């Protein structure tokens, strides 16, 4: 059974790098190989140019935060954070100073004498973070550290983590299955699936120009339309025809041949009603289609509409709930417009 195959990554110093993928994608295994708790069958790990193969985890000088926090239950907060410094035989005075600074960084000043069982999940996580940072490692490894926290706390901690990382200029390798988290915090994201890397790049690039159907589906939401590539339009653009005859233009994520069955991906927010002001900005080359509103789903800040395009398929569009908006009524006919730049074409995968 292969957990990770052919993973090759270069992570820039001082950057926030995320390994993103569903469970079983190999992201945690990859992280464990960097940490030294898993052994690569082939290949090597280098940190700052130094090979890590011969070094057990305790000699790699990397900070690590686990999903279960792994805060030592029999030691106080102070002793937990001081632990790595005691190992490194730091002077008592220096320890006091650095632990204080670390606790201040995670906003737990005053908690020194408490025991882990007296802390909430979020507080324990911050102790784990302070402990991993107090000895100033060059790299910080984090394995789904926010997974056990509730949504509000998680969002808050995401920002805190990002600020701390920027403040300390520490390289962070972060593992998560939450794509929103990855998009929010990362400088660079590697999307993994089935043990391999699907795409690496900054969040915006992954979101706007997904390289595969998996990435388009995993990150954010996408509408998928099955079609056939008819003729090329230069620079990777293609004219496509959908099952019901709808014709539109899109950009191929990979090289495509004429006549090849493809799937087109368009994000819901990129589809606008033709009468809207935004549609005019799309220009004359915009794609259009006619559809019927089947269902309206209210999500608070916006309303999503399921629009049937007949034999061509179904799409979801998102209309923000703003003053002056003219939301379509259920059952009404609409005309939608969107840009070919926002239409990504992938080879069709058998269902």
């Amino acid at each position, binding site marked *: 059974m292969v957990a990770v195959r052919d993973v090759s990554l270069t992570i820039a110093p001082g950057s926030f790098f995320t390994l993103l993928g569903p469970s079983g994608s190999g992201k945690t295994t990859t992280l464990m190989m960097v940490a*030294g708790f898993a052994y690569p069958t082939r290949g090597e790990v280098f940190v700052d140019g130094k090979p890590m193969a011969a070094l057990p985890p305790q000699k790699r000088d*990397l900070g690590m935060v686990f999903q279960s926090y*792994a805060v*030592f*239950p029999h030691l106080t907060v102070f002793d937990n954070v001081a*632990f*790595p410094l005691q*190992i*490194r035989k730091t002077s008592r005075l220096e320890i006091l100073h650095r632990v204080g600074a670390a606790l201040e960084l995670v906003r737990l000043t005053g908690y020194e004498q408490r025991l882990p069982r007296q802390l909430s999940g979020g507080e324990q996580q911050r102790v784990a973070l302070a*402990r991993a940072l107090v000895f100033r490692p060059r790299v910080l490894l984090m394995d789904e550290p926010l997974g056990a926290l509730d949504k509000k706390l998680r969002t808050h901690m995401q920002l805190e983590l990002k600020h701390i990382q920027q403040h300390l200029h520490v390289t962070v390798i972060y593992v998560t299955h939450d794509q929103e988290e990855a998009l929010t915090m990362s400088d660079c994201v590697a999307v993994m699936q089935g043990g391999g890397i699907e795409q690496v790049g900054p969040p915006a690039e992954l979101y706007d120009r997904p390289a595969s159907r998996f990435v388009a589906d995993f990150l954010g939401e996408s509408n998928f339309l099955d079609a056939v590539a008819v003729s090329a339009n230069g620079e990777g653009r293609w004219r496509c025809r959908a099952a019901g005859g709808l014709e539109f233009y899109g950009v191929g994520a990979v090289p495509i041949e004429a006549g090849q069955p493809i799937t087109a991906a368009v994000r819901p927010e990129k589809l606008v009603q033709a009468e809207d002001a935004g549609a005019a900005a799309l220009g004359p080359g915009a794609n259009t289609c006619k559809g019927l509103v089947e269902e309206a789903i209210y999500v608070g800040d916006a309303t999503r509409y399921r629009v049937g395009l007949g034999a061509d398929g179904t799409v979801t569009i998102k209309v923000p709930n703003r003053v002056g908006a003219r939301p379509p009524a259920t059952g009404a006919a609409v005309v939608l417009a969107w840009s070919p730049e926002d239409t990504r074409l992938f080879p069709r995968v058998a269902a």
Partner: protein
Amino acid sequence: MMGLEGQRSGPGGVAVTALAVAILVFLIAPVVIIVIVSFSGADYLTFPPPYLSLRWYQRFLGTPSWRQAIGVSTQVALLTMVFATTLGLLAALALVRGRFRAKGAIYAVLLSPMIVPTIITAIGLYFFFVRLKATGSILAMALGHTVLALPVVVIIMAAALQGFDMRLEQAALSLGASRLTALRRITLPLILPGLLSAALFAFLTSFDELLIPLFLSGVEVQTLTVRIWNSLILEVDPTIAAVSSFLIGVTTVVLGASAFLRGRGETTTT
């Protein structure tokens, strides 16, 4: 099963419960009676004793040979405790953490002294030590008892280690601690209740044991249990009741301490 259901889900009801109570009394009565009778002032062991006295305890602790027997039993048991706990802890660490195929077989081998009837183990050790002219040696008895106590220690330690979250040790390693430091500062403090419990049971196994020291004792070097055995062959001396109470007391203390440790253990691990 909940107590409420108990009344509906079984036949008999009151009769069965009464029977169970009777059996519980049957189980505990002999032990209780011996303890009470040991305080008897009369020459014969009657129950209840006509008047209480400490005479049998005075006989027990006043006779040099009994006192010596306490010393022998204690020394053997302490040695057994040290040997068995050390060996068992190491073995349990390997069994719980290790990843190799022979694990099931090795586990069976470590537990095998529990399966073999003690009389066989005892004569095997006797033939072994007789050849080395080492009968009557406290060390020989301790080594023999270690064989018996090892399975108990391994079982208790394996359970304690399985309840221990390995990620705590991984965290310690990631923070730079050596394997030994991680074991010393993180693992051992957290499995200490289990470790002490295993040590106590090793002690008790040795202290209670009769068959092995029966063969390995010398004339001078007898454990408490062997001394009881020899006395019983001769006569039913009431002093033995006091000795028995003493042994029951040791058992109670060990069980109590072990239960206490288990309670402590549950509060320190998250």
